C-alpha cells in the first residue's frame, strides 16, 4: 500500500503532536495514576505505570483525615459566590457602557482594567489589617468580597465585548415599538446576552477557583479553600504521594472539565478582547 505525500505528512504531524501533547499532559496523568496506588507503590523504584493494585483507599483517607469536602465546599462557595456577585454588579455596568456609550466610557473601561494590573502585594498589608480588625480574616464572606473585586474588571470587560456584538439596530427597533428600558432588557437583550454571560461565568469560576494569593494569605483553617488545603501538604514529614495525588486529582478534576469547555472564552477573557 502506498500512501500519497499528503497522507504521509498528516501521519507525521499526528505522531509529533500526540507525543508533545502527552508529554505536556503527563504530570496530570501521573498524578491521577498515583492517586490509585498505595503509598508504597507510589514511591516504588522503578516507578509503576499501570501494573499496580488499583485502590480507592487514598480518596477515603484524605476525606477522613482532613475533612476534604469542607475545603471543597469552601472553594465552591468562594468561586461561585464571587462570580455571581461580580456578575450582578457587572451586567448593568457593561450593558450601560455597551449600549449607552458616552465620551468617557472608553476611559472608564481602561481605568477599570488598570485596577487589574495592580500587583496584589501593593494592597496586601492594608487588606490584611482591615480584615483582621473587622473579623473578616479566615471567613468565606471576606474571600468572596476580595475575589469579586479582583475579578470584576475581567467580568466587566468580557461582558462588554460580548454585549458590543449585539446589533444596536435590534434595540432601536424595540424602542420604536415603544419598549420600555425594562422590557428591552428582559425581552430583547437577555436572550441575546445569555451565551456571553454564561461564558463569563464559566471563566471566572475557573479563575477564582485557582486564585492562590489571597486565598493563601487571608485564610487559616476555617475558610481555607482547596488551594490553601493542598498547600498544607508542602510540609516534608512522611510519605504521602498517593494521598497528595488523590487530593490534587479531586481539586483539579472539576475545573479541568469546565476549562475544556471554555477554551475560546479563555482567549477573549484573558486578553481583554485584544486577540479574538
Amino acid at each position: 500500500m502506498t500512501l500519497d505525500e499528503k497522507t504521509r505528512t498528516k501521519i507525521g504531524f499526528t505522531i509529533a503532536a500526540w507525543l508533545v501533547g502527552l508529554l505536556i499532559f503527563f504530570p496530570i496523568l501521573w498524578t491521577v495514576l498515583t492517586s490509585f496506588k498505595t503509598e508504597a507503590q507510589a514511591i516504588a523504584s522503578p516507578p509503576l505505570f499501570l501494573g499496580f493494585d488499583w485502590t480507592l483507599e487514598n480518596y477515603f483517607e484524605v476525606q477522613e483525615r482532613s475533612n476534604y469536602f469542607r475545603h471543597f465546599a469552601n472553594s465552591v462557595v468562594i468561586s461561585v459566590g464571587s462570580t455571581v456577585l461580580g456578575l450582578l454588579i457587572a451586567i448593568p455596568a457593561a450593558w450601560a457602557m455597551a449600549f449607552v456609550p458616552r465620551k468617557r466610557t472608553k476611559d472608564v473601561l481602561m481605568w477599570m482594567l488598570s485596577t487589574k494590573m495592580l500587583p496584589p502585594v501593593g494592597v496586601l498589608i492594608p487588606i490584611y489589617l482591615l480584615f483582621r480588625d473587622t473579623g473578616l480574616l479566615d471567613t468565606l464572606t471576606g474571600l468572596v468580597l476580595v475575589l469579586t473585586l479582583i475579578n470584576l474588571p475581567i467580568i466587566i470587560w468580557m461582558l462588554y465585548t460580548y454585549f458590543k456584538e449585539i446589533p444596536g439596530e435590534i434595540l432601536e427597533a424595540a424602542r420604536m415599538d415603544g419598549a420600555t428600558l425594562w422590557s428591552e432588557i428582559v425581552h430583547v437583550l437577555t436572550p441575546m446576552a445569555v451565551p456571553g454571560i454564561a461564558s463569563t461565568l464559566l471563566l471566572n469560576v475557573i479563575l477564582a477557583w485557582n486564585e492562590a494569593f489571597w486565598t493563601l494569605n487571608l485564610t487559616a483553617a476555617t475558610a481555607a479553600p482547596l488551594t490553601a488545603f493542598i498547600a498544607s501538604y508542602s510540609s516534608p514529614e512522611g510519605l504521602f504521594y498517593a494521598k497528595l495525588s488523590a487530593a490534587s486529582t479531586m481539586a483539579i478534576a472539576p475545573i479541568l472539565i469546565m476549562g475544556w469547555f471554555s477554551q475560546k472564552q479563555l482567549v477573549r477573557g484573558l486578553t481583554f478582547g485584544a486577540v479574538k
Partner: protein
Amino acid sequence: MATGHSRVAARIMISPAVLLLLGWMIVPLSMTLYFSFLNYNLLMPGVHEWIGFTNYEFFLTDPAFFTALGNTLLLVGGVLVITIFGGIGLAILLDQPMWGQGIVRILVIAPFFVMPTVSALVWKNMFMNPVNGLFAHAAAFLGLEPFDFLAQAPLFSIILIVAWQWLPFATLILLTALQSLDRDQIEAANMDGASKWSRFIYIVLPHMSRAITVVILIQTIFLLSIFAEILVTTNGGPGNASTNITFLVYAQSLLQFDVGSGSAGGIVAVILANIVAVFLMRMIGKNLEA
C-alpha cells in the same frame, strides 16, 4: 439616540462597579503608601512615627532587594522565553493537518487549569524530589547522580514549573491568532515559490506579532506576582535564592511584621508593574478604537 432618561439610568447602572473598584484601588493603595512612611511594626504597638523615606532607603539598599529584583527578572524572563518560543512552535504544530486535533489541544491546554499549589507540589514531590521523584528514577536508570532540583537550582526549577503552567496560555492565544491567518496569502506565496522558512518569517510571524506582544505583556503582569509556587516549593530559599519581590514583601510584612518596610516594597512592586501595564494598556486601548 440615547434619551436623557436612559443616560441617567446608564449612570446609575455603572456607578456601583465604579465606586467599588475606586474603593478597592484608592483606599488600600493610599493606606500602603501611608504605611510606607511610618515606623510601623506589628510587634511594637503604640505610636507609629513618620519617618519619611527611611523605609524606602532600607528596602532599596537591602541586599535581599537586589537578589529579589534579579530573581523577579529571571523568573519573568525565563518563563517568557520558554513560553513564547514553545508556544509559537506548539501553535504551528497544532495548526497542521492531523487526526485527533481536538484531543491534542485539550491535552496541551490542561496545565493552565491546574491550581498553582497543586502543580507546584506535584512537580516538587513527584518529579523533582531527589529520592522518589521521577527525574531521580530517570537519572538512576541512566546511571547518573540524582539532582536535587529545588535545593541546587531553586529558581530554575520554579521557572520550569511556572513555564509548564503558562505554556498552554501562550499556545492557545498564538494558535487563535494563527488560525485567523488569511490562507490565500499563504497559497499565493506558495505559488511564488516561497520556501517554508521565508513564509514563516515574512507572513506568519508578522501576522502573529500582535498576539505575541499581548502574550508577553499579559504574562508579565501575572508573572511579576508569582507567589504560591514559591511558597509551597522553596519558601523563597535556600537563603533568598528563589525570593521574588512579591515574596519578599510578603515575608517582610506577614512573617517579620515590618509593615512599614513591607509597604515600601509593595509600592516598589506597584511601580514596576505599572511600567509594563502602560504598554499593555496602550495596546488594548488601540484595539478598543477599532
